[in-house]
């Protein structure tokens, strides 16, 4: 039972940190650009295939492939921002968010057309296992853990200590106040798309590696979990998204632990995620780290 608990904890942490990192980007985009970007999931899919291209076709290792995927996805996010979303600014939250649904569908179909529906996998040994007594993890999971151990604190530091990070949080908190304080909100808007794209790139590659095999539905499968993370953490709150992702990942996995009253049936894991969300929002509508607003 202890072994199962340890394994579920590791699994939950891996899923949770990936959700956290991708959730930070989506949350900041909402806070700064006032867009619920429903194409965010497809950014993850795009990243997985960009990473695969570097890894399988050009023989790059996983770290280089991940870095390349992050760069490519960041460019994609900025290109969509300048090409589609910025010209449509002022159409309202609902209209713009619906447009992102369309962008997501288009991206997904283009990926389907280009790469086909077959499952793919990175050129790493998917059958190898590191047996650490209580837990067994694959090389892919180990890399995911290593990368997130580095990147998650780095993102937190970026937001907390650097002028750009502080400016991002300021714009997310109050765009008008930030603007009259001298912050170039347009520039910050571009930076936030770069950051969101890069983090989606990281998340997409990591999900693909952790899943072992993936297809063009990869991003769509996690889109609602990402948005749950964003809402749970408090819309627009980067720290909230970081914490909420980890909480969500752990809650979903540990809910199936047999020591927890026999464990929840696995099929109800996603239900639990949304039950947690609804329960929290009933008592704390602004989310874990969101600030209550008085209008």
């Amino acid at each position, binding site marked *: 039972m202890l072994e199962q608990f340890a*394994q579920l904890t590791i699994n939950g942490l891996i899923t949770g940190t990936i959700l956290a990192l991708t959730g930070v980007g989506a949350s900041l985009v909402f806070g700064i650009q006032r867009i619920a970007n429903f194409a965010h999931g497809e950014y993850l899919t795009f990243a997985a295939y960009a990473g695969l291209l570097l890894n399988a076709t050009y023989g790059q290792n996983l770290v280089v492939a991940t870095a390349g995927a992050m760069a490519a996805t960041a460019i994609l996010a900025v290109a969509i921002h300048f090409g589609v979303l910025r010209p449509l600014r002022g159409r309202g939250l609902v209209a713009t968010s619906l447009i992102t649904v369309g962008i997501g569908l288009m991206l997904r179909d283009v990926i389907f057309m280009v790469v086909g529906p077959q499952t793919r996998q990175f050129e790493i040994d998917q059958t190898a296992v590191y047996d650490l007594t209580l837990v067994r993890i694959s090389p892919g999971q180990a890399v995911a853990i290593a990368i997130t151990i580095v990147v998650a604190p780095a993102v937190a530091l970026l937001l907390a200590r650097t002028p750009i990070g502080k400016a991002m949080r300021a714009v997310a908190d109050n765009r008008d106040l930030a603007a009259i304080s001298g912050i170039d909100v347009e520039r910050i808007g571009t930076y936030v798309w770069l950051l969101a794209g890069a983090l989606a790139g990281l998340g997409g590659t990591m999900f693909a590696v952790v899943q072992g095999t993936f297809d063009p539905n990869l991003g769509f499968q996690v889109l609602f979990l990402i948005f749950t993370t964003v809402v749970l953490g408090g819309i627009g709150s980067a720290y909230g998204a970081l914490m909420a992702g980890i909480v969500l990942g752990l809650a979903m996995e540990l809910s199936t632990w047999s020591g927890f009253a026999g464990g929840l049936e696995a099929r109800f894991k996603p239900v639990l995620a949304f039950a947690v969300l609804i329960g929290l929002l009933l008592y704390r509508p602004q989310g874990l780290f969101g600030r209550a607003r008085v209008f």
Partner: protein
Amino acid sequence: MRKHAWLGAGFLAVGSLIFGGPQAAAAENVSFTLKYGILAGLTGDPAPSGQGWNESAKLAVDYLAATLKAMNLPDLKVTLADSQDSQGSPQAGVEAAQKLVQIDKVNVIIGDFYSSVTSAVATAVAIPNKVLMFTGGTSPALSKLNTGPTPFIWQPVAADDIQGRVLAQVIGDALGKNAKVNVAARNDAYGNNLSAVFKEAWTAAGGTIPKFIIYNHQQPTLDSEAQETVQGSPDGWLFVDFCQTFAKLALPLSRSGKWDSAKSFGSDTLNDCQSRGSKNYPGMRATIANASSGASFPAFKALFEQKAKKGVNFQAFLSEAFDSVFVAFLAALEAKSADPAKISEHVVAVTNDPGTTYTFQQLDQAIKAIQAGQKIHFNGATGPMNFTANGRVSALAYDIWQADADGNAKVVKTIGFKP
């Protein structure tokens, strides 16, 4: 006088209809255009199989059209109106089928091979519009949709209520009737129904199921499901899933160190995952109904490999789509009409004894025989078919597939099953 002339002509016409001239001469006057539509998941999860389904049905229509042309029968025409993408989704399937029925005016729909899509399309489109459907779906609920006097839904493959019992028999033969078998099934109509039938058959025969797991296959990772699947020290496993999503479960299963693929069995959708764009697991077995027991199966396979679009993999179950096209046409020819209701009345007749046996390789002879008023029994690439009046086949042969150490899968045994 003029009135008498009309009466005389009328009596002559009625007399000729009742007593008939030579059958062949009468058949030569038969004229119809049979319009087919294909419905399959051409994108998304079902695409690896859907593309093959589409190619298979197209091949059959082309083969049929070429045969009619070679026989110089210009009054008998077959056309493929369109191939529509259901995306494996009931909603998209209904929209696609509405296009086929309302715009293209098809008489016969070949597809879908997802039970969920077939069920929605049958209820919302095919049955209300009196259009025939030949489905690859294996849910036993599908043929039960035929509540009227004329069946419009035809299943050219044995349904899951039979498959569940076959799996129990096969696993019992391999592991012993009292073995402990963990079951993991996807959380949809297919997974729930088939696993439930297996559970009933398995436990009734004395076996036990320590863990019965229904999982949400659309989750990004299935690690905790894999953890649960290896608990209870089972002697073997049964998986009910599709290849694409099963791959997500198989990896954490392998990592657990407690899973043995050689003691694992799969449903018909896991029979050869390598050919469906995924991978096979050494030693794993799967059963599939009646898909390759026909004498013409090798010829169909050769035709597919020669003529199908490059990059579309061959799979045994594609013969269901291939056979369905011929069955619909031969029934139409015997009915002398492209009216779906009339075709339906002749499906049983052309797929059962008595009658001279023909395969698609003797299609011209089968056509001549029907034109001559003779009874035929069309044998498909899938086997003898033997459709019953409720829309299901009664010829129950099952192939057991097994993957070798290199990941290649092949049929290792074919068994008969008596319900």
